[in-house]
């Protein structure tokens, strides 16, 4: 039963992880002026984590993941605008709407692979973007959804310094992270990795590949929807950009930068990408693209498989 012990050891909390999550509280005291950036990072990290579940663990490369983020954001926004501004209800509604869309599209997605799969996710994402653009009476079109009134969260108002926003985003990120961690270390998570490595062999050992992939895709969609709803609540607006190709591409870049197939890949990627973007655009607002590009090239050259992947490979070498 040495193998069971191996998997147990893999899933145990490490001191470094505890330290990391304690560090996420630092922005409250160390950089109180950057709390809105910190909540952006937490939301993006959650979005990247949801992509990691399908890309890193199940091998589904998606260039249209913003579809779920956007549906979550619009659902939460419309709910807050027309019915009730209670944030937690918005989270649930956003998650449910994104999950439904994810389940519906997962039936298409699991039939395809490689470039076709990427292009189908891209196509479905772009279709939704165009649809939201055309349905301006409902979504506000290119002007975005105006007049979103977000209520209080357990009696706390969303203040202009972003204290509530960051606490809220961080708490939701942490809960979703725990869920993702549990999923990854479960037999289901192992089966997903098996499917990623060899999709024809897994059915042969009795794992229902397509059903597993559909499940993973739906879970990732739910999580992306929660991230979208968080963005709506913390910014009180929804712009068409939440559904854009740019957002899908950004989150893909962030995840690969951090290291796909690692629980902390998306989080590390989001921290580095967004902090770098904030700093570079502070130095020179027009040309920050250049430095981000240079960063990406350098990471691929010196740390293949993302920052975490590259670091862990370097770490293991001397042994």
């Amino acid at each position: 039963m040495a193998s069971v012990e191996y998997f147990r050891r893999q899933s145990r909390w490490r001191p470094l992880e505890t330290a990391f999550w304690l560090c996420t509280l630092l922005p409250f005291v160390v950089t109180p002026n950057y709390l809105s950036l910190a909540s952006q990072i937490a939301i993006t990290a959650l979005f990247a984590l949801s992509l990691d579940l399908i890309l890193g663990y199940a091998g589904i490369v998606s260039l249209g993941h913003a579809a779920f983020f956007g549906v979550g954001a619009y659902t939460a926004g419309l709910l807050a605008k027309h019915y009730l501004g209670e944030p937690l209800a918005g989270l649930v509604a956003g998650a449910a709407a994104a999950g439904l869309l994810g389940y519906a599209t997962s039936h298409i997605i699991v039939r395809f692979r490689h470039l076709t799969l990427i292009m189908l996710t891209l196509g479905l994402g772009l279709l939704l973007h165009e649809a939201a653009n055309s349905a301006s009476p409902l979504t506000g079109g290119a002007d975005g959804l105006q007049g979103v009134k977000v209520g209080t969260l357990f009696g706390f108002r969303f203040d202009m310094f972003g204290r509530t926003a960051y606490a809220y985003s961080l708490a939701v990120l942490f809960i979703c992270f725990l869920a993702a961690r549990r999923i990854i270390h479960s037999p289901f998570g192992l089966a997903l990795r098996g499917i990623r490595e060899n999709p024809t062999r897994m059915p042969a050992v009795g794992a229902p590949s397509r059903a597993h992939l559909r499940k993973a895709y739906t879970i990732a969609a739910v999580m992306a929807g929660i991230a979208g709803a968080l963005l709506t609540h913390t910014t009180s607006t929804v712009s068409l950009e939440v559904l854009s190709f740019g957002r899908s591409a950004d989150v893909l870049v962030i995840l690969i930068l951090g290291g796909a197939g690692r629980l902390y890949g998306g989080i590390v990627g989001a921290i580095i990408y967004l902090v770098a973007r904030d700093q570079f655009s502070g130095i020179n607002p027009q040309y920050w693209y250049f430095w981000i590009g240079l960063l990406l090239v350098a990471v691929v050259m010196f740390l293949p498989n993302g920052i975490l992947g590259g670091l862990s490979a370097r770490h293991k070498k001397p042994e």
Partner: protein
Amino acid sequence: MLSSLAGVLFDGFAYGMLLFLLSVGLSVTLGMMNFVNLAHCSFAMVGGYTTVSLVNKLGWPFLASLPAAFVTAAALSIVFERALFRRLYKATDLDQCLLTIGVVFISIAAFAWFYTTEQQSARVPAWLQGSLQVGGMSFANYRIFLIVVSLAITGLLILLLERTRFGAQVRAAVDNQRMARGLGIDVDRAFMITFALGGGLAGLGGALSIQVVGLDPTFALTYLVYVLIVVSVGGLGSIGGSFAAAVVLGISDMAGKYYFPWLGAFLIYLVMVGLLMWRPVGLFGKR
């Protein structure tokens, strides 16, 4: 109705030719090495800006600037292939994506630095302006020129691939890279030439597209989506497939904009999703 249909078909075909020039290189190099080069449209942008500089700053005639655009983009493709991309042929797809998207970001910022973010244009000679009247319908001279040039290039490409020794090597490498190596074909060299050729054609496409869609530094990202659509719908490594896909997408985009303007770009994406679900390997793809 009928005349507008002819107009839409004509404009769509011309637009499709543009998409074909922009994407054919990526299709062949992806089919050969499985190298995901998202920076393909950056080379198109190099061609476009070469033409802008030569025509507007140095006063070259538009026609003379087109070969220059081809050569500059091809030369720069070779530099990037040798210095950067070559190291990543064995890397994962994700690393290839990240590196090439980094190159796209750098190119966007670099062109914004040198040429500002404004839309650029290049003067074309008088005989390319205006339009030709045939039976009550008007055909823009520039689009006729675009179609003639693209068809000539397509013909040359097919001759090159089907009738020459180099073409046979490329086809062998696309079909089965390892087997081709086993037969003593220098796949790396063939790939480098193909990559340069593809980059050059993209550069030419970029130069020709200034007059139709304009040119600004975000070109590399905007047209990346269209190019990927053409490549995937056409099927990897297939010139005929890219041609057919480019024509279908060009015409459906024009038809969508003309007949259903409220749908925006909805139609072109719908066509793509439909075609891909019908034929996952692309119209003419083999695997």
